[in-house]
């Protein structure tokens, strides 16, 4: 008997390699992706009982290739001439490929190409997320659906459509050219961070599957970092995710309530993840031009280095936010910067920074603006206005844990009045 978890980890690692290999040989990303899923399912069913075969990848490749061949055979009537030629080749006959059929190109390149393909600009954000989780992460449709609290049929259709769109867009299984590559890599990073944030829940009940998304985003972030060790933003994103996830145990109180950063029990932070995150971002910043993920990770690192909230080096955090605001101006950055300004120069200075955001359509009426204002008004001692702002933020959020937290802050202030 082999441990289920070991099998799953092995399968998830092999999934993108196998898919890359198949697409390289046969084209038809859509069908190859289905065939890989079926091979993974067969392995997940058989290996725990029968043991892992000596050459797991060859086993999977044989099963996946057989699926493809069976499908092509059953479609013989509609089969086009190219396919007929392909089927006459011995390698497609559904037997185990010889050992020299191993890929001529390194798997690493295939995984990266796959990530880029799954984050194709023809896809919506949610489709990029779903396809990345399945084709690169090796998760089943059922697992992805559960994590998103969606019916499996919905997720299945979303993935099918994403694959059709990629095909319709004429995308090839190849690395994008240099001009497009940089842009696409930014999309990949955004998709991974989106997956991470989707899983960043405050609940341990029905959303347990959801929380696994943070772990998956970090796993994919590690793979990407291994493939692109010379990209500072890739290091920055991985560091940011590790440093944020390090708070997991401390950010939720005994009754499931959110605990803000300043009140967290820092002894419960994950010291190993913090050390890794700090090392990653510190190293990257020595040679890479600072990008938004690196700077956000650097800010998280400064928080992590303070043994108590009172010891936080807010001056350094403020300097990092100023740099971030310069290279990636964004009202959400200004919001966070206002908190740092308040900690360095007093709450009134922070509040002044918020005023222009009321006129910015991206933030006007946004609950985060109200929440930050509430926090700063509370620091300034304006209890009544702070309470109003907390309540406005609570009405504006669509996050249950946030709503509960904001209402609690408002209630505490009401008791003080």
């Amino acid at each position, binding site marked *: 008997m082999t441990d289920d978890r070991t099998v799953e980890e092995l399968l998830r690692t092999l999934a993108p390699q196998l898919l890359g290999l198949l697409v390289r040989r046969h084209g038809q990303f859509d069908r190859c992706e289905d065939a890989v899923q079926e091979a993974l399912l067969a392995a997940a069913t058989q290996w725990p009982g029968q043991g892992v075969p000596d050459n797991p990848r060859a086993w999977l490749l044989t099963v996946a290739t057989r699926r493809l061949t069976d499908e092509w055979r059953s479609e013989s009537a509609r089969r086009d001439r190219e396919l007929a030629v392909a089927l006459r080749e011995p390698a497609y006959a559904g037997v185990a490929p010889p050992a020299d059929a191993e890929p001529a190109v390194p798997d690493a390149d295939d995984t990266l190409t796959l990530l880029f393909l799954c984050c194709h600009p023809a896809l*919506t*954000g*949610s*489709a990029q997320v*779903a396809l990345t989780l399945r084709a690169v992460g090796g998760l089943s449709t059922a697992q992805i659906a559960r994590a*998103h*609290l*969606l*019916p499996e*049929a*919905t*997720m*299945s*259709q*979303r*993935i*099918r*459509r994403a694959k059709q769109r990629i095909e319709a867009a004429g995308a090839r299984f190849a690395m994008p050219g240099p001009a497009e590559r940089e842009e696409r890599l930014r999309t990949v990073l955004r998709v991974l961070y989106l997956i991470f*944030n*989707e*899983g*960043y*829940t*405050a*609940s341990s009940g029905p*959303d347990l599957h*959801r929380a696994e998304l943070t772990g998956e985003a970090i796993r994919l972030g590690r793979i990407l970092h291994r493939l692109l060790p010379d990209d500072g933003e890739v290091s920055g994103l991985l560091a940011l995710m590790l440093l*944020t996830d390090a*708070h997991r145990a401390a*950010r939720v109180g005994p009754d499931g309530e*959110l*605990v*803000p*950063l*300043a009140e967290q029990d820092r002894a419960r932070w994950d010291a190993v993840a913090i050390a890794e995150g700090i090392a990653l971002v510190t190293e990257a910043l020595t040679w890479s031009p600072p990008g938004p993920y690196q700077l956000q990770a650097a800010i998280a690192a400064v928080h992590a280095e303070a043994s108590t909230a009172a010891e936080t080096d807010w001056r350094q955090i403020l300097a990092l936010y100023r740099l971030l605001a310069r290279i990636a101006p964004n009202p959400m950055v200004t919001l*966070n910067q206002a*908190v740092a300004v308040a900690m360095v120069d007093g709450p009134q200075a922070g509040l002044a920074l918020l005023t222009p955001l009321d006129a910015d359509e991206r933030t006007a009426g946004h609950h*985060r603006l109200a*929440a*930050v204002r509430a*926090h700063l008004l509370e620091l300034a001692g304006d209890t009544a206005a702070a309470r109003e702002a907390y309540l406005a933020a609570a009405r504006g959020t*669509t*996050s*249950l*844990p*946030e*709503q509960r*937290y904001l209402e609690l802050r408002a209630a505490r202030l009401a008791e003080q009045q």
Partner: protein
Amino acid sequence: MKYMLLIWNRPGFTEELTEQDRTALFGEVDEIMRELTETGELVGGQALANPAQTLTVRLVDGSAEVVDGPFMESKEQFAGYLTVDCDSPQRAAEIAARWPDVRFGGALEVRPIMDESAAEEM
């Protein structure tokens, strides 16, 4: 982001429609459902029985009491819902705008569904 589209209409309004209008209405609903299934945006939905079959439970003299009839006495009643998962509130509103009940004097409410994920609080 998930949204619930709440369908409000005048109970029994379909009884007054011509056969042609009625067929068109159900056809449009089928068409929207097919499209949403195809795009992978449809999460679920249910139609509710006529409000005449409703029981309402409310507090009367300190205890829960069950009475016949809907909670709100209004011309329009809650008739059913549709849950979609889409990338923007604009897209959810666009789906709602196509729902045929709107054309016959009904209304659709587009309401975001609360989520469990949460950013870290400062």
